[in-house]
């Protein structure tokens, strides 16, 4: 399968750089070519988004999609901001932060109990989360809709946060569990001998040592909430409870022909994550890869 795909390019590598002792130059030239092609595939749409978002509506119709912009305008951005973008942004930030807090507060004690606990119930709990890893949210959206309406939470940000957090929880528990396993047992034992109970161990040992893993899980849960589309679609209705992805979609169906405006909204919706990326690239990437890199 993938091996066959790789065979031909590999042969070329062999020919290309004999003798240069560089570590891990495996797949160097062919992979480099693939990387170049993929670079174009990724870069062209990104360029299209940015360039079109600063075109006027007229220019969008007349210019080619990849032409350099003839008349640069920021009107699209100001229009989008007037169309309730700030509300969508605020709702998305609230939903993402609440989801992250909920996931971290619930997952860390659970992971601690799974790693250090001895009872059968705890072990069964872990199995439950493992199974939960692959329950597709789509498959249970109808009962969740029923539960949310019966709890009188329909059309609120809480309605989005609760199921979003629940579906990030299994991944959070699994990642934190594997991180806590790396804490040597001697550390717990030394503190236990000094008379520390589970509560003290949690505060003084587990919490400080799991900080990188908490960051990873937080990023994962935060991005999940940020990107979430189905739960907001089904569980909210009114414009003032709308989160960004839904706001974008709504914008498209209402102002379908205003592509420059739509793409300005897309750029604006990506800016918060871009800021996060520039600020903590390492954390963001390791957060995304958490638990699966090993």
């Amino acid at each position, binding site marked *: 399968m993938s091996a066959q795909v790789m065979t031909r390019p590999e042969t070329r590598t062999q020919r290309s750089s004999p003798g240069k002792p560089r570590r891990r130059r495996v797949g160097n030239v062919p992979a480099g070519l693939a990387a170049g092609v993929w670079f174009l595939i990724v870069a062209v749409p990104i360029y299209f988004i940015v360039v079109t978002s600063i075109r006027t509506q007229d220019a969008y119709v007349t210019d080619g*999609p990849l032409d350099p912009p003839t008349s640069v305008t920021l009107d699209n951005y100001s229009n989008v901001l007037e169309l309730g973008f700030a509300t969508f942004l605020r709702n998305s930030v609230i939903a993402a932060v609440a989801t992250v807090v909920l996931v971290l507060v619930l997952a860390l004690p659970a992971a601690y109990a799974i790693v250090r606990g001895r009872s059968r119930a705890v072990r069964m709990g872990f199995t439950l989360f493992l199974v939960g890893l692959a329950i597709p949210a789509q*498959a249970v959206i109808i009962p969740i809709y029923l539960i949310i309406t019966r709890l009188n939470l329909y059309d609120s940000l809480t309605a989005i946060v609760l199921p979003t957090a629940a579906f990030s929880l299994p991944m959070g528990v699994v990642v934190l569990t594997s991180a806590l396993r790396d804490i040597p047992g001697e550390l717990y034992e030394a503190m236990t001998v000094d008379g520390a109970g589970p509560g003290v161990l949690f505060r003084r040992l587990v919490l400080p040592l799991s900080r990188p893993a908490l960051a990873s899980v937080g990023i994962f849960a935060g991005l999940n909430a940020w990107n979430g589309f189905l739960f907001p679609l089904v569980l909210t209705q009114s414009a003032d409870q709308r989160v960004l992805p839904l706001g974008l979609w709504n914008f498209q169906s209402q102002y379908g022909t205003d592509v420059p405006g739509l*793409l300005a909204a897309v750029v604006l919706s990506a800016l918060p994550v871009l800021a996060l990326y520039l600020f903590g690239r390492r954390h963001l990437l390791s957060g995304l890869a958490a638990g699966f890199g090993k």
Partner: protein
Amino acid sequence: MSSVSLRERPGFVWAAPAAVFFALFGLVPIAVVVYLSGTSWNGLGTPQWVGTENWSALLDDSDFLPSLRTTALLTVGTWLVQTPLALLLGVWSAGAQRFRAVLSTVFFLPLLLSTAAIALVFVSLLDPNFGLAASWGKYLGAPDGNFLGDPSRALPTVIFVLAWQFVPFHTLLYQAATRQIPASLYEAAQLDGANTVRQFFAITLPQLRNTIVASSVMMLVGSVTYFESVLLLTNGGPGNATKVLPLHMYQEGFVAFDMGYASVLAVLLVIIGTVLSVVVVRTTGYHRMASDREGL
């Protein structure tokens, strides 16, 4: 001594809040959806018990089998496109080549965009009148520039857009995993005179085995959730060309308001998800981690 340390260990109370919370939104709904599949419910009033009526309706649903087939095609197509590409790019970007930093930064840009944003961008980009597809379509096998609106091109186009969105993530997994392969393995292989091809197949690929499994399983499980992209890109069309099973369920439930029949389709999705979850637990080694604990 052992009785003391046993008493000092955290009990189920520590895991209970997470377990209860997850059960409420993850497990209870499964029981509820099984119940709902035996009712008639329009989403507003009270569900009325109708027995197996919805289940026998499955036989008369001419959209069901095609949507199942489309789901399978999307899953397999997604895996075939993304896995070799992500593996190649991941291994490459773990090295120290020129331009690597610049290129990998650009690779990861799609990760900053939400599913909704990406779908809407490609709807514009592939617009047969104003989009890039209009001028480039003839080079890509679509002289009329119509990709999403053509029954035979729609599904491959969706698979392409999904690759655009998700290859960066899987590349990241392979990059992280490749970086964890001990350099000493390559040094030893070099001393033995193994060339790059041998090194790739003898060291890199076996060392990445777990990541390949994990990444593949995530793609399989994720293929059910790709429904959001399909909804936004084509809404199942043209005709039923891209109507995947979860989209069919969504339309029966939240568009046609036949929640009872939609629950039947949802139960089938749960079964598919459970089968895949067993694959997750069996193949990623998490169950082995769980049994390691018994020696603690």
